[in-house]
C-alpha cells in the first residue's frame, strides 16, 4: 500500500501548516528546539531521498542568517575575528532564526514527501468541504502553472535575443515580462471559464464525505498536539 493512501492529505496539510505557524508564534528558543527536534528527523527520514536538493538552498539561507546576525545583532561583544566583533545577540539571533527556518523546512519535507498538490486538493474538497469554486481555481492554477513557467522561459529567451536583461531587476523589466504573460493568460482564462460553464460547472455537485482519520492520522494529530503543548509549557517555565 502506498503511503499516500494511509495518511490523509488534509491531515498532513493541517500538520504542516500548524508547524509553520508555530515557527512564527513561539518566542522561546527551547520551544523551537523541541519542535525542530521532533520534526526534522521525521522530515529527513521521509523526504531526504526525494528532496535532498532542498538542503542546498537551506544551508545557503543559514549562511545569510549568520552574516546578517554578525552584522546587525546587538549584545555584548564575546569574541573578535579581526575587525569583526561577535556579539552575544548574533549567536542567539542565528540560533533563533535557524530553528524557525528549520521548522519550516521540516514542514515542507513532511508534507511534500507524503502527499502531492493534486491529492491535497481532492482531499480538501471531499473531506474538509472546500467550496467547489475554490477547488476549481486551485486545480486550474496547478494545471496552468507549468504552461506559464514555459511562457516565462520563452519571454526570457526573447529578451536575451533582443539584448535586454534576462533577469528582471527594475519594475519596468517586470512590467515588460508580465504584460505579455497576462495578455496570453487572461485570454486563456476567459476561454477556460466559458468552456467550464458550457460543461455545466455551475451544476456540478462535489462529492463530500465525513473525514475518517486512519490510525496514522490520529497518531500524527496527537504528535502535533503533544509537541505544541510541550513547547507552550516550555515557553512558560
Amino acid at each position, binding site marked *: 500500500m502506498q503511503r499516500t493512501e494511509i495518511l490523509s492529505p488534509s491531515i498532513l496539510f493541517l500538520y504542516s501548516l500548524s508547524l509553520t505557524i508555530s515557527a512564527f508564534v513561539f518566542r522561546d528558543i527551547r520551544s523551537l528546539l523541541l519542535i525542530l527536534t521532533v520534526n526534522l528527523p521525521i522530515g529527513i527520514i521521509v523526504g531526504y531521498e526525494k528532496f535532498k536538493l532542498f538542503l542546498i538552498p537551506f544551508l545557503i539561507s543559514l549562511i545569510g542568517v549568520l552574516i546578517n546576525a554578525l552584522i546587525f545583532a546587538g549584545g555584548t561583544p564575546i569574541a573578535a575575528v579581526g575587525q569583526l566583533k561577535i556579539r552575544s545577540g548574533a549567536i542567539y539571533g542565528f540560533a533563533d*532564526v535557524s530553528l524557525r527556518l528549520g521548522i519550516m523546512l521540516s514542514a*515542507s519535507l513532511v508534507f511534500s514527501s507524503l502527499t502531492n498538490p493534486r491529492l491535497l486538493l481532492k482531499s480538501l474538497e471531499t473531506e474538509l468541504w472546500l467550496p467547489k469554486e475554490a477547488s476549481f481555481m486551485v486545480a486550474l492554477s496547478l494545471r496552468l502553472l507549468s504552461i506559464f513557467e514555459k511562457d516565462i522561459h520563452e519571454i526570457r529567451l526573447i529578451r536575451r535575443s533582443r539584448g535586454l536583461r534576462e533577469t528582471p531587476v527594475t519594475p519596468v523589466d517586470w512590467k515588460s515580462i508580465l504584460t505579455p504573460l497576462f495578455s496570453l493568460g487572461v485570454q486563456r482564462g476567459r476561454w477556460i471559464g466559458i468552456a467550464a460553464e458550457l460543461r455545466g460547472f455551475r451544476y456540478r455537485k462535489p462529492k463530500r464525505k465525513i473525514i475518517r482519520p486512519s490510525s496514522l492520522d490520529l497518531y500524527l494529530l496527537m504528535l502535533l498536539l503533544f509537541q505544541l503543548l510541550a513547547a507552550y509549557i516550555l515557553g512558560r517555565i
Partner: protein
Amino acid sequence: MKLRYTTVDLAILAVIAAIFGAVFTYAWTPYYAIKAVGGKLAAVLLTYGIWYMAAPLAASLIKNPLAAFLGEFLAGFVESIMPQIGGFSGLIYAGFQGLFSEIPYLATRYKRFGRAEAAVAGALPAIPSIALDILLWGSVYPPQIFMVLIVLAAISGAVYGIIAHTIAKAVSGKT
C-alpha cells in the same frame, strides 16, 4: 456591491494565481542577485512589491469584492503547496497581505478600482509582511532596520501596484 463571481472570473483568478505562483518562485533569483550586489535595502525596494502585486492586479481586472484578497491568497496557496523550503509561510504571508490589499477597495465601497487604489493596495501589505518578518527575524535585526524596511516595502508595493493596474488596463483593452 455584489459578491458574485462568474466562472470566467474564477478562471481569471486561477490564471492570476498560476502566473504569480510561477513569478513568486522566479522572483527569488533577482531578489538574491540584487541583495548580493546592493544589499537588503535595495533588494526590498526593487523586488518586495512583486509579492504584493497579485492583489491589485486581481482587483483591477475583476472589480469585485474580495478579488484582491483572493488573487493574493490563491497565488500564495499555489506557491505554498509546491515543494519548496519555506513550508506554508507563503500562504500565511499571502493571507495577511491579501486582507490589507482589500482595504482601499473596501474604503471606496468597491466603487473605485483606479490607479490610486491600486497603489495603496500595493503599499498596505508592507505592514503585515514586515510584521511577520519581525516575528521571524526580530532577534537578528534591530527595530530601526524594520522601520526602514516597512517604508521601502511600501514604496515598492505602491510602484508595483501602479504597474499592476497598468497591466490590467492594457490587458482588458485588448480583450
